[in-house]
């Protein structure tokens, strides 16, 4: 089973969540990344996601496998959108099930952080002003050390685990 995949349509979190269910899991944590309307002072109208899918799936799968080795969780899965997304749409979903909540939170955080830094996915922001730009590629062309220092692009929402 692969633990990382892309989709060109809206992420179906209900069916993704079902893939994590198991009788030994006492809880489930998920993260959703949403397209936000503002980045670095510019009004964002739309994001375009593009991925080098062949390698991205391998690297994403390695990240989830790494999370499952580090933290004693039951199942973990990450789904990423590609294509054109409008403000409010979900760009990425991470879900983790485990016996206890602590490791599920840790693994979920680990996966989203690593995915953002390691998986070959790019996004182009389209602004209200009519401008557009590839995030981390254009404004930073002269300052490579700031490669990963950009602001997050979504509101973060973490679902609470079942009480057990």
């Amino acid at each position, binding site marked *: 089973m692969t633990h990382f995949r892309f989709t060109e349509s809206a992420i179906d979190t209900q069916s993704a969540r079902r893939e994590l269910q198991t009788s030994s899991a006492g809880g489930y944590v998920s993260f959703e990344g949403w397209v936000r309307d503002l980045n670095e002072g510019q009004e964002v109208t739309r994001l375009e996601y593009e*991925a080098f899918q062949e390698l991205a799936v391998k690297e994403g799968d390695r990240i989830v496998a790494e999370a499952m080795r580090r933290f004693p969780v039951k199942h973990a899965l990450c789904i990423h959108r590609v294509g054109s997304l409008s403000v409010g749409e979900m760009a990425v979903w991470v879900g983790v099930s485990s016996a206890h909540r602590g490791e599920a939170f840790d693994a979920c955080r680990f996966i989203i952080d690593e995915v*953002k830094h390691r998986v070959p996915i790019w996004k182009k922001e389209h602004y209200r002003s009519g401008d557009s730009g590839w995030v981390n*590629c254009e404004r930073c*062309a002269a300052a490579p050390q700031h490669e990963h220092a950009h602001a997050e692009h979504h509101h973060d929402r973490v679902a609470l685990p079942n009480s057990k």
Partner: protein
Amino acid sequence: MSEFLPPVYALILAGGLSRRMNRDKAGLKYQGKTQLDRAFELASRHVRNVFVSVRADQALDPARAQRPMIVDSAAGEGPIAGIRSALAAHPKVAWLVLACDLPYLSDAALDFLLRRRDATALATAYTSAHDGLPEPLCAVWEPAAAAALADYQAGGGQCPRKFLIRHGARLLEPQDTRALDNVNTPEEYRQAVATLDSVAPMQLKIQYYALMREQAGRSEEMLETSASTPAGLYEELVARYGFTLSRDQLKVAVNSEFSDWSRKLNVGDAVVFIPPVAGG
């Protein structure tokens, strides 16, 4: 620390008249290019400022005059005069000194030498695969070598190899034992031509994503290249498409797996340059 490292320029030595070859070695051709042009282009893929070392009487030679030159100013003859003249012309610069008659010298071999350069030594040089002695004409000479070379010549020395042996250069064993073979006789020249012709430029598949896709104006292409590593290939593509991202901002993948910049490319490899990622 690295910000104090002297920058590296390259000096192509093409001054020598070849007695055994019975003709001007700089004009010998491989794959349709003179070895002076090949050496110059090879060095230019690794170092921004490249000069050809010439004797005063060669400064008007049309084969040489179209390139930036350093005309021998230092006393003496042969390579030591060329090296000293370059060090004198740009005293704060280290010099990648290359003989032009090394037809097998590759991007990978130069990349390896430059990466392992030790600026605290007077020079960083490859050792010969045949006798283990330093190769002064495929080496990085540091600015501090200038004074030591002057003393050495004042004491009657003329041989840069003996100089490196005496002064303890930082030595590197070549990865490819043939990389430093030079060509001195018509027979060696015939062999080198045949060998290099059998390694025809290869076809690679390049895929472009995101900013680089837009700058290249395409998402993939089949490309004939003589670059042997992703590093060399990227230099070629920067020249062609004017990519704005520098190599240290990128990662590279070969056949859908992350790769080293100095990996040797093979026919049919699929190469992807990976700009700074922004998932999530």
